């Protein structure tokens, strides 16, 4: 027992009188029981939204990008807004599993599996937008440096858009293998207790024959640690490179050196908010309150509050630097952003992202589940508007006042966005019923140090 000592002041991370076997039972339950009516309703709505989106995508590809609300002045709007929004959301998963692993934060174990799943699903949504925006998605292979019939006309490695291709594809694939490697022991657990032959077959297939030998575990732990070490700079690089899409341009409002750190903070901010939204529902529905505790929610709220404050600082720094630069175009871009025709979007961004997370300074609010849920939604809305503000307000009033215009989305724009939300939830709902949603083999390693019953036992001594 002494080797499992943890300071009594630390709150337990596994609530209730749990044994190793109880953890197995609790994690396997959602997989082994049929889904209830609420799940089918949620799945039905998501599927409908997804299908709506598929229809809009097909229409876009069949007719052309002209079906969107873009015009000569605003050539980039919802597509890239949605892309950056989804990529940003996709940052929390790897941050939770990689950065928090390096910092030895045990509370990551209750939530890392679902956060990583969310990462992968949202990066998939993000990846859709550049592909659709190509107009001719069957030419997607032009993205990659492959010898071709045009006298080997290569891609341009000086372009930040190409850096993005490499960053996003590296991020997606590395997150995927990180996730899957962590899943192997948990799939094996489901496999070894499966009763139905079909279920056994499927889980045998996807657990890759995991047996849990001592040597396997030794390698597993080393691989996890090294992957975390690789994924940590990777996760920071991805949104840095996304911000380069704007920062390396010469458009006032985009051409700022603060973009990389500011985008990374914003990404972590919105990612944690999305994790919060999903897990608050999932812990209730899948009865995982013992593993995703109020303590976990509070920790995530603290991260949201801090990154929200960083984002707020960045907004104000941008304004200051625009004024301080003495460049009138730069000054106008920010004046227009805050007080021009899109003032309402700027106001929404400021109030959702900077003001709303500040209520988390109160312990009562950051430990309240309802408040956490509401704030997490508000933050996600705010972060969508942040990208919209950056992209559209910097473009819609360019150097030539005669070409000044506004952007309004068509129902195709809206449909594709709603479709990706539907697709995201379809994937997440399927995941919640077929994957072990808590990294049970990891939670078992902290049961004796951070389990409520073991902590009480030690206190008595």
């Amino acid at each position, binding site marked *: 027992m002494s080797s499992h000592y943890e300071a009594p002041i630390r709150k337990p991370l596994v609530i209730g009188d749990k044994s190793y076997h109880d953890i197995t039972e609790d994690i396997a339950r959602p997989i082994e029981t049929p889904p209830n009516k609420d799940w089918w309703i949620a799945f039905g709505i998501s599927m409908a939204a997804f299908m709506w989106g598929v229809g809009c995508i097909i229409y876009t590809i069949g007719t052309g990008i002209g079906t969107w609300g873009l015009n000569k002045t605003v050539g980039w709007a919802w597509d890239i807004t949605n892309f950056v929004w989804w990529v940003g959301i996709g940052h929390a998963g790897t941050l939770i599993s990689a950065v928090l692993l390096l910092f030895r934060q045990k509370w990551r174990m209750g939530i890392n599996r679902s956060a990583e799943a969310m990462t992968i699903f949202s990066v998939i949504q993000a990846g859709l937008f550049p592909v659709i925006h190509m107009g001719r998605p069957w030419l997607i292979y032009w993205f990659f440096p492959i010898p071709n019939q045009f006298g*080997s006309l290569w891609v341009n490695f*000086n372009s930040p858009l190409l850096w993005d291709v490499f960053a996003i594809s590296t991020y997606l694939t590395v997150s995927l293998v990180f996730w899957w490697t962590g899943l192997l022991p948990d799939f094996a657990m489901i496999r070894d207790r499966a009763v139905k032959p079909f279920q056994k077959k499927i889980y045998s297939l996807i*657990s890759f024959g*995991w*047996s849990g030998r001592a040597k396997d575990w030794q390698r597993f732990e080393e691989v996890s640690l090294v992957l975390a070490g690789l994924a940590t700079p990777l996760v920071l690089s991805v949104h840095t490179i996304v911000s380069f899409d704007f920062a390396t341009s010469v458009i006032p409002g985009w051409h700022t050196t603060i973009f990389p750190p500011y985008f990374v903070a914003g990404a972590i901010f919105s990612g944690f908010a999305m994790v919060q939204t999903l897990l608050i529902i999932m812990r209730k529905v899948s009865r995982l309150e013992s593993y995703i505790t109020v303590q976990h929610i509070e920790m995530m709220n603290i991260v949201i509050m801090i990154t929200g404050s960083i984002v707020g600082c960045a907004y104000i720094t941008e304004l200051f630097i625009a004024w301080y630069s003495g460049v009138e175009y730069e000054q106008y871009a920010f004046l227009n952003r805050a007080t021009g025709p899109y003032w309402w979007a700027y106001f929404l961004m400021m109030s959702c992202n900077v003001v709303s997370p500040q209520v988390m300074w109160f312990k009562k609010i950051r430990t309240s589940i309802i408040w956490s849920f509401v704030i997490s939604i508000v933050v996600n809305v705010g972060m969508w508007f942040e990208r919209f503000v950056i992209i559209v307000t910097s473009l819609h009033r360019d150097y030539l006042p005669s070409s000044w215009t506004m952007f309004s989305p068509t129902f195709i724009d809206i449909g594709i966005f709603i479709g990706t939300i539907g697709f995201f939830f379809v994937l997440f709902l399927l995941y919640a019923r077929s994957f072990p949603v808590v990294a049970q083999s990891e939670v078992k390693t902290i049961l004796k140090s951070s389990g409520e019953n073991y902590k009480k036992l030690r206190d008595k001594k």
Partner: protein
Amino acid sequence: MSSKSLHVLFDDDDTLLDAVKQIVKSKIYINEIYTPFPVHGLDKAMKLKPTNMSIATFIYGCIGFTVAIMMMNYIMIVDWPQNIGGKPSFTLIENIPSFVPIIFEMTVFFAAHLMVITFYLKSKLWPFKKSENPHPSTTDDKFLIDMETGTNIAKTKTMLKKLGAISIEIINNDEDEK
């Protein structure tokens, strides 16, 4: 070596760790230990060699780094140099600042994927691979030591009982081979 071996089940990781230390002390060879989660200190207790995974990964990362530079040098400098806005981009050293993001990404890409592939191959993990844990509960809450019997089976058994084993099974390996 005897053709018999023992499958000893434990239900607690601390008992297992103490037992493994005792078994190693009494010089009985442990073939394998199956556990549902990583038991810290187990690899040291059973005297496993440390893994070289991180060294391999470093080499993989170096390969990715080199491949990225060579690829971009060939494409942008050697094969089809382009004048992009009159910027200095006609030698590798002039153009390398804008290659940094992709050099980094490819280093990570190679290191991460080749490491995971190495791990899967060395630990024999791939689709359609049959699992080899002898008891299904070793992925749930039980710990199994697959060990030699020692010179005196009865004596080994009493020792294991004392160490907290919940069940001991004698496995006849000769029969398995037939």
